[in-house]
Each structure stands twice: as C-alpha cells, then as structure tokens.
C-alpha cells in the first residue's frame, strides 16, 4: 500500500494549464505522473489517460507534477478543463457541473482500479476566477467563495471522498488589457477566504503574463507550477492516519464506542512497501504516555522521545522509505503511515535508524473541530490521556462561524449522540435520525456545544445552503468526518 496524492483541478481546470494550448484538451505528456484530463463540453473524446513526457510545451501541470515527483510525492493530477468559465458554472445545477462530475467520477474509478488498496490524500486546486473578475455581468464576483464552496462540497460528495487540502491560484489583479480587473480585488479577497490561509493561496501577480493579463506565458506557467508545487510540499506531510483509526476516534467522539488507547506505540520500517525483516530488525517502540508524547493544547501532537531501532546486523536493511505506527508489536493495528521525504539507508554494522524527538507530527490542518476538542483527541491517541465522552451535545444555528465571532440564531437543541449517529465508516459518521431545530433566516453555520448554555464549542460547520428551510436537519444530512 502506498500513499498517493490526488490533485483535483476541479472546478474548473481553467483554460490555461498548458501555456501553449489554452483551452485545449491534453495532448502533452507528463512523465511519471498519472494525468487525467478532459475538455468540456463533450466535443472532445471522453476521459483520456495520458502519460505525459516532458517536452518544450511546459505548462503549469507539467511543472507541478514534475516538482512533486522530484520531492517524492506519488502524484495523480485530474484536470477537467473548460476555457473561459465562471465559478457559478461549476456549482450543482451549473452549466458544466454535471458533465464535470461525470468525468471526475470516471477518473476516480480508474484511479482506484489502478491502485487497489492504496491510500489517497485528496487536494482541491482552484484556478478559476479570471472571468468572474472581468465579466461580472455573467459571473457573480461577490459569490466566488460560496460558489467555490458548493462546487468543492459537490465534488467531494459525488466522488465519496474527503479533501484534505485546498490550494487556490490567485486570479491576476490586472486584467482587461493592463487595467485592473473590475472585480479583481473582490475576487482575490474571496479566494483567500476560500483558501483558508495565505499558505494555501498562491499570489501570481508577479509572474510572466501575456499582454492583457488574462493568461500566463509559458514561462509564467512554469513559475506557476513550480510555486504551486512548493506550496503544496510545504503544507503537505506525506503521511496519513489509518481509516480504521479514524473510525475509532469518531465513534469515541460520538459516544458510540469508547476508544482505549494503546499501552505502547510501535514504529515499523518499510522498504518499497515491504516491512523490513531479518538482519537484526525489530520495531522501535515508545510507551504511550505523556512522558513520550508531549501534551498538546493545539492541533499538533509530537513525540517527546525518539523511536530508536536496533542497528542492522548480518546484512543490510536497505533504503527505508516509509515508517508506519501501530498499536501492537505484530504490526496489524495501524495508526498511520508516512513516506519519508529523505529515505534512509540502513547498512550492516552502520548507524541505527531513529525517529528523533519531535520527528513524529500528527496534526489537524484546520477544521470544524475546536482546537480544544482536537487537542484532546490527539492527546488520547498519542499519549493515552483521557478524553471525556458526552452522552448529550447541543446544536445551535449561527450567523457566521462561532469561532470567529458569529452570532447565535435561535436556541440550542439537545442531541443524544449515540442514538443520533451511525457508526463511522470510511472516516465518516452520518446522522441516523432527524435533529429538529427551528429555522433561522440568517443562519449560515451549525455549531455543536458541550452544554445547554455557555460551555465549549466542539464543532462548527458552514451550511451548504442558507437559510435552512425545513425546521430540522434530516437524518443523513449531518456528518462528522476525519479527512
């Protein structure tokens, strides 16, 4: 099993990922990166899988894939292209949404068939925005962020995946033949909002643009791809948490099944997907306590002491390129795994392999979970600290996120967790019963608390459609998930 990063350039792929062929279907080649592309609407052949070889027709995706490959990321890029489009063409019911979804689904089916059993980290890359900034009479600049959120959610739902990352290419501030785009500033600010942080938002204004500022030149696309790759690499650890472990944590949080942390955490070394055996090999271990795992109050958990493997004896181990953490010595109950950015050659009689203090980082990259709640779950998994399960939690509508000073709308509604939630599957738990909650015309967020009044926020989530209209959140229409 291998960790692969799937970069979904949807929606939309915008017109200009190739530099020399804006708006065209893929005809180039990209070495060693699985590259799926299709031009919409269906005037071109349906999904094609093109293995690209680098040549002189560099584009953004070429450079992106090449740079990620060089950094050791096993990458798949899916790009559904349509030139000159508006963000609102790609939301459910939009002009290109259905066709785009169909192609994305086909790509996802092919990917899963090609790599059965592998673990996938999903990224959403957005290139859209130029048209909204230029021609607001057809696009809707002010709704860029909400339109993106809808297309993002629709894509995730249609594919049955959860995105771990969002990366947004900033729309060029200068459009319309060198003059600032009418709505560039607005769209840019909404793009930053959708990206969530500046570290996920690539400012391309300084790149090499064609006259008029709509498309990058080939050199500009090379800059774009390399910078995008650097941004992704900087913000993307190469490891994942096992789905079964996500389910266990979710079931614990939702008061379905109590999770009992392991007494000892074991680290196993792998070479090309195969666990090292013989030649003195044994897993390294750390007692799962607060001495070995630094208590956290943030969204990041690290080890306080090293995992020290024994030295190789009687023969080499080979180039260790992956470390997996388990809750048992035999290595069957996996916590997670990480491909090593710098594989380590362990030779007979040479230095021993170590994972030094601070070299294991388990992190939540920002989410609907409160920081305190996430810190508690991280302390439970690694460190073995207690995390209180709640029989009842309380839901309330908010205008704006509670965490950023939103205002409550209506009262709180008690929710009995173990009768409201299904058991988690595939890292997702969905509600099994309706939750009746009064309509609130201004509600844009749903927030969960640990008390009927005051207390602590546990989760919050933006409503996919505002305002809600039926006086309840029907069964299956709320979910808690670990991406």
């Amino acid at each position, binding site marked *: 099993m291998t960790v692969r990063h799937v970069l979904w350039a949807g929606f939309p792929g915008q017109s200009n990922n190739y530099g020399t062929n804006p708006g065209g279907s893929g005809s180039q080649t990209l070495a060693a990166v699985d590259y799926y592309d299709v031009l919409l609407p269906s005037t071109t052949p349906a999904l094609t899988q093109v293995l690209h070889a680098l040549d002189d027709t560099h584009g953004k995706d070429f450079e992106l894939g090449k740079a990620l490959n060089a950094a050791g990321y096993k990458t798949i890029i899916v790009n559904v292209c349509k030139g000159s489009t508006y963000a609102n063409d790609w939301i459910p019911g939009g002009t290109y949404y259905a066709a785009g979804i169909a192609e994305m689904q086909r790509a996802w089916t092919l990917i899963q068939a090609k790599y059965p059993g592998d673990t996938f980290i999903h990224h959403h890359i957005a290139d859209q925005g130029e048209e909204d900034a230029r021609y607001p*009479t057809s696009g809707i600049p002010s709704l860029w962020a909400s339109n993106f959120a809808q297309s993002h959610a629709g894509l995730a739902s249609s594919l049955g995946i*959860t995105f*771990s990352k969002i990366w947004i290419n900033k729309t060029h501030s200068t459009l319309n033949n060198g003059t600032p785009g009418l709505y560039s500033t607005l769209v840019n600010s909404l793009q930053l909002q959708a990206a969530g942080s500046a570290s996920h938002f690539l400012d391309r204004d300084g790149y090499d643009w064609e006259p008029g500022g709509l498309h990058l030149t080939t050199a500009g696309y090379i800059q774009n791809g390399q910078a995008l790759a650097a941004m992704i690499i900087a913000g993307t650890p190469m490891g994942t948490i096992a789905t079964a472990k996500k389910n266990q944590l979710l079931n614990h949080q939702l008061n379905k099944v109590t999770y009992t942390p392991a007494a000892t955490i074991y680290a196993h070394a792998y070479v090309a997907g195969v666990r090292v055996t013989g030649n003195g090999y044994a897993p390294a271990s750390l007692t799962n306590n607060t001495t070995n795992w630094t208590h956290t109050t943030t969204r990041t958990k690290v080890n306080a002491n090293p995992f020290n493997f024994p030295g190789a004896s009687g023969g080499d181990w080979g180039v260790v390129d992956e470390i997996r953490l388990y809750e048992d010595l035999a290595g069957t109950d996996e916590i997670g795994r990480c491909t090593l950015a*710098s594989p*380590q050659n362990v030779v007979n009689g040479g230095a021993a392999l170590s994972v030094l203090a601070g070299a294991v980082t*388990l992190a939540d990259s920002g989410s609907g979970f409160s920081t305190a709640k996430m810190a508690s779950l991280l302390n439970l998994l690694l460190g073995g600290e207690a995390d209180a399960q709640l029989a009842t939690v309380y839901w309330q509508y908010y205008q704006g996120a509670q965490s950023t000073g939103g205002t409550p709308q209506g009262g709180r509604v008690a929710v009995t967790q173990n009768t409201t939630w299904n058991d988690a599957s595939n890292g997702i738990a969905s509600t099994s019963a309706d939750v009746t909650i009064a309509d609130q015309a201004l509600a844009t967020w749903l927030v969960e608390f640990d008390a009927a009044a005051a207390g602590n926020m546990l989760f919050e989530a933006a409503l*996919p459609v505002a305002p809600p209209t039926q006086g309840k959140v029907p069964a299956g229409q709320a979910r808690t998930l670990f991406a």
Partner: protein
Amino acid sequence: MRFARRKCLELPRCVDLRRAYAFNRRPGDRNNRGRVGSGVPGGGAGAPTIDFSANLGLQTVASLATPVSFQASLTLDIVASVGIPTPDLRVQVSQASKTLGGTMRAAGTAPPVVTLAAGTGSLTYGSNCPGIKVRISDTSGGTGQGQAKFDISYDSGNSWAHTGVTTTASYSIPDGVAAGNVVGFPAGTYNTDQTWEGTTATVLSTEGHSYTFTQATASIQPVFRHSASTPDGKAALFFAGAQYLRSTDAAVYNIFANDPAFTLAYRVAYTAADALGTVCGPANSGSSNKKRRFGQSVLGNGRQSHSWFNDAGTNATNDSTADNTSTSAVNVEWDSAGSNSTIQVRVNNGSNQGPAGTQNIGTLTTNRFSIGAEDDNAAGVFLSGLVYDLILYSSQKGSSDLGNINTALANGTS
C-alpha cells in the same frame, strides 16, 4: 437577454434572491431565461425585478446532496534519520562534561591573576556550562581592588549579567547556572582594557566511555566559549596557541598504532593564519619523532587548507582554495584503510582531495592523544582557533557514513 443582465446588476435584490436559494442559473442560460416582474417574493411591490424561482424550485437541507460536515483533516508526518555509527572517541564540546580551570585567562595590559573557584557550587558543568567572562568597566574611582568596577557575563561576553560591580577578593556569582562560584580579584592594578575568561581544565569524551582530556597548567588550558559567542552558534574550546588537552587513555591513542585503518572528523574554525596548527594527534612524551598530527596548513593555499603529518615527518596537504581570512567553521574528514593505503581528506562533505598514492600514518609507539597542539618533548605546533567537535573511529568509513558524520558535525547531533 442583455436587458435582463443589466436589470439584474442594477437590482441588488435580484442578487439577494439568488443568494438566498444558492442557485446558479445566470440570466440567459439555457433552461433559464427568467421573466421580468415587479418586486421579489416577500419584498413587496417596487422596482421591476427578475424572478427565477419558477424554474428553480426550492432546495432544502433535506434535498441537498451535500450534508453539513464537521470535518477534521488529519495528517501524519514522520522524519526518520540514520545517525552516525558509535564512535570510538567523540569530544562534542557542547555536550561534554567540562571542569573549568581555577585561573582565568587574562588579556589586556598587565592584568592581575583573577581566579575562579567552585565556592558553594561546582566548576564541573555539562551542556549548560557558562562562559564566564569579566571585564573592567570603570576605573574612575581608582584602579585598585575595591576601586575598579567590573562587568560579568555568563555567555562569554555576548551579554552582561551584571555591570559596575566593585572588584573584591571574593565575588560570589549571585545568579545563573554559575551561582555560588567565586571570582577572585587580587590586589593589583586594573585597567579597562583587561578581560578574563574561564578556561577548561578537563573535558570528558562523549561517545560513552568518558575518556579524560585534561590540562593541569592553567596557561595551557583552552578557554571555554559559550554558544552565544561563537560564529557557529555551538559551544567550543578556544585555543590561542601553545594550549592543549591531553588524554592518556590507551584506547584512544592506540587507534593510531601500527598504520591502522581509521576515520577522523572534526569541526573547527581557524581564527588565525598560522603556518601550521595542530587540531589533534597522538604523540609520545619521550620523542618528537613518534608524533602524528592532523590540522591546519597555510602553506600557500589559505587558512582553510588542511594537512597531515606522519611519524616520519612526511606531510601532505589538501588543495583547498579557501581564502586566507575566513573564520567560518569547517568540517574536515580524514580516512584511511591503513597498511600504506591512501589517506583521504574531504572538507564539508565535498569530494576527496589531497594526498595521492600510498602513505603510512606511522607505526611508532605513542602514549597520549592531544587536542589543540602537539604534545611531546619538543616545541609544539599549535592551533589558533575553535574546536567544536571531534569524532574518531578505528575503521575506515564509507561515503554514506561520512555524509552522516558531516551532518552530525554541522548540526551538533548524534
């Protein structure tokens, strides 16, 4: 159609309507031509608007394909590393146990002999070793003891913990890791160009055996420099020529017996362009003919060229073209398979340079190993510079290990 677009723009209520239901058909799209009316639902009569609801229907939470999602995004990052093979000798100054000397190293015009004593504390420190430095800062009240005032630093002069303190025969350091140690200012004449630094009388090796490197003569002890006051940001021993620490542990000096295989690596910074400067080497107390040495050479190639001498006086120098002024820290790695094989040197993990052909490191008996100068019965060749770390193996290491050793030296890691 164009009229419809203009109207939509002119009427924010139209946008409000679309936002309220989060629908996506823009005016003029296929299947959504819209219709012109007046007012909006619930908005009362007024300016003309466009009502799209006729062909949209109402979407609700219940009918959405996308649920409300409480989401976390968990990622796991692991960095593994291969350390260096356990050395036969390592003197990592920052981590070593160090015992400070009783007489501080003086500089300036005719400085009195200032002493350092354990007092109520201890002069033996580990990684927290203070860089004790004092300077005369004020003689306006007189130059004698009890008149002149001094400043004291715990980080070798990077910062000053106390200033304007009156000199006294017994100044007990009031705070910091050296609290309780006593600085003694004897009667004498004090001037503002005078400084004193703590020296290192004994260092224990850090590979696990705690081999003792020591020097009883105060004037030959190197100064201990705190990490805040070295160019490399790591604690170091500062040798100012004619200074060294000696080990008489046989396990150390015998590594060089009988033309052996070995690997020697060190991180140093040369602070002066000495013609020759010994970083380390084995020797015999009874004969200058039995010494070997590894160190600095500026025989035409600059301060950071490096040389090796065997016990017959045969030497070789690598061909570094480094300039003659740099005081930057540098990693130097020597290795040999022994038995008249090639002795190689490489700098900062670069390519092998220097001596070609076969060389014999020497077979004559030694009985000591020193750091900082030759240590035999004749005038030595001395180092002027900083020694941060020294690693020695009784075997020749391959390029992978050498790379890791270079990294460990550069980063101060194991």
